[in-house]
């Protein structure tokens, strides 16, 4: 570091600096170490087919986690994303008769509507984000199951199957979509007024309000974006599995997405959105569980390792200087 970097005078010891670096770049380092270790253990890990499988698994999580990162950036949380996936999955077989484009458009529209309801409860009624989205999480999955029926329905439409299975230039189409979404979200956060307003609201909602920012509009938009991204992930999941199964698709997705965001270094207290970190966090969690499964570790070990990883990530990224 050059001398031009101004360190805060109070308590900026070596330990603080290491923790800060760990929070910022820890997830990339951890990802690199994980890939190195996995390759050392099993040289097949770097094979194209393995990476393709991992990308198929990770792409929907990345999409959902991007929306979640935006919501967490405003000091909220969106528990309804898993149920939104189920909702978008349930309309695909119902409306596929009109063609794939209207069906997908309707799924995305429903995702936006779900986000709109949650966002309106948060922004206009002042309900806590966690309960507002909890009520949607419970309710929407029920609605999705009512629309689809209890059993899974097969989907045979070529366009939707292509979305989930097709490779473009050797890389899954899903991964390209996730990449495009990552670029769009990163651009939004860094380069647009909306992105700056979002971060400002997450940092200090009251100050943003007094500064004349459109707090309610930004909050609603953030939840709508999260809903649309979750619905898109739902379409991709339907395409990949060739069936719509609202009882099971998207289960625990909210937990996976929150984990990816937190591991990626975005603080839960809002005011900062780390887009690339979120993608790296999602990839890290996916690869970590894949490595454990490939080496025949039981599910119990996978779950405990996940829990420890979450704790470590939060310990590194917790607010410092409060004690």
């Amino acid at each position, binding site marked *: 570091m050059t001398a031009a970097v101004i360190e805060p005078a109070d308590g900026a010891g070596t330990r603080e600096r290491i923790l800060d670096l760990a929070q910022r770049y820890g997830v990339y380092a951890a990802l690199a170490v994980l890939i190195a270790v996995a390759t050392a253990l099993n040289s097949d890990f770097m094979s194209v087919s393995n990476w393709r499988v991992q990308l198929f698994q990770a792409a929907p999580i990345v999409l959902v986690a991007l929306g979640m990162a935006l919501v967490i950036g405003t000091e909220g*949380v969106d528990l309804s994303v898993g149920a939104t996936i189920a909702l978008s999955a349930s309309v695909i077989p119902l409306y596929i008769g009109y063609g794939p484009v209207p069906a997908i458009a309707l799924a995305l529209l429903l995702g936006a509507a779900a986000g709109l309801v949650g966002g309106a*409860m948060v922004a206009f*009624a*002042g*309900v*806590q984000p*966690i*309960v*507002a989205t*909890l*009520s*949607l*999480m*419970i*309710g*929407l*999955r*029920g*609605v*999705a*199951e*009512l629309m689809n029926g*209890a059993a899974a329905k097969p989907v045979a439409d070529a366009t939707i199957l292509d979305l989930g299975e097709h490779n473009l230039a050797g890389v899954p189409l899903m991964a390209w979509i996730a990449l495009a979404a990552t670029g769009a979200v990163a651009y939004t956060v860094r380069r647009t007024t909306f992105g700056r307003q979002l971060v400002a609201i997450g940092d200090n*909602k*009251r100050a943003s*309000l*007094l500064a*004349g920012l*459109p*707090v*309610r*509009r930004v909050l609603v938009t953030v939840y709508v974006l999260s809903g649309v991204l979750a619905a898109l992930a739902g379409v991709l999941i339907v395409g990949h599995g060739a069936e719509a199964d609202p009882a099971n698709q998207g289960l625990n997705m909210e*937990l996976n997405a*929150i*984990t990816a965001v*937190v591991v990626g270094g975005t603080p*839960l*207290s809002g005011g900062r959105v780390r887009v690339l970190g979120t993608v790296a966090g999602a990839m890290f969690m996916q690869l970590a569980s894949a490595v454990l499964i490939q080496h025949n570790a*039981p*599910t*119990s*070990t*996978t*779950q*405990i390792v*996940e*829990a*420890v990883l*979450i*704790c470590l990530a*939060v*310990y590194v990224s*917790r*607010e410092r200087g*409060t*004690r």
Partner: protein
Amino acid sequence: MSVRTPETAAPLPAPPPRRAGRDGLLETPRERWIRRAERRGPLVVLVAVCAAATAASPSDASWSDVSTILGNNAFVWLLALGMTFVITTGGIDLSVGSLYALGGVLAARASSSGPWLAILLPLVVCAAWGAVQGLLVAYGGMAPFIVTLAGLLGARGLLQALTNQGSTTYLVPAHSWFRHLGAGTWVPVGIVAVLFALGWILMERTGYGATLTAIGGNQDSAVLLGLPVARAKVLVYLLSGTLAGAAGALAGARLGSGVTTIGVGYELTAIAAVVIGGTLLTGGYGTIGGTVCGVLLLAVIHHLIDRYLSQYGSAMTDAVNGAFLAVVVLAQALLERSRRR
């Protein structure tokens, strides 16, 4: 953006003290009605739903209805009891569903060595689990949401490890008196009622309950007042974990075996019951009586849907519960806002 005063446009972080009007000062009749609606609302809705169900049903409310509503899911209500304390401090405990399942498996496993062990082992393990979470929250400065989310995953993992990935089922011996704890209607309901009464005393009549409320209202003030904030927080997660373990052990006694797949999503039902009961999710106000109304309301709704709309299955229950929770939190937010105006 319309020009409005900041007070109406943004929810204030800390709610005003609920009993400000008790000394008769500064409370208009309108404010008194709002306060009453907030405090008694859950009870009124519960009575109204029960009355409507009785009036609409072709037969009178039968004993078997009451027995079904009370006996089958009484243990799950203990999760909501523990959750009430945690939410009063402004925290949240997502691990209770997993600890519930873990408690059941531990009880079934230990019951072959004697009923006392079957009661003690789940309590001790779940209390320790809760205490670790509390230590991380209170002394580690980590967000309760994430710590207990990790606890949810970790406890499920431990459960899977104990049962060889769910392939081993531990049975409670047929002649163990441990089974009697979960049998019938009155024994479970009695146990749960006693624990709720103890919880009410702890919340309303002890300094510990007052400390919890103070922490939820304004943690910095509580620290400056010299209250044992960190210790109280550790204890509240320990209490929640212990209650979840006890609920799981009793469920194990009722089912006669350690079922590994139960408890998924129960933490959310518990949170919903607590919020419906009127406890503020922001902390600073918790009511055990409200939680009782909350769990009973959810149970009655569940029973009614099972009875009249059973062709739609559990999906209908989910949809109605979600909508009901949304209506309740919206009503609470509106009442809160109109009181401030």
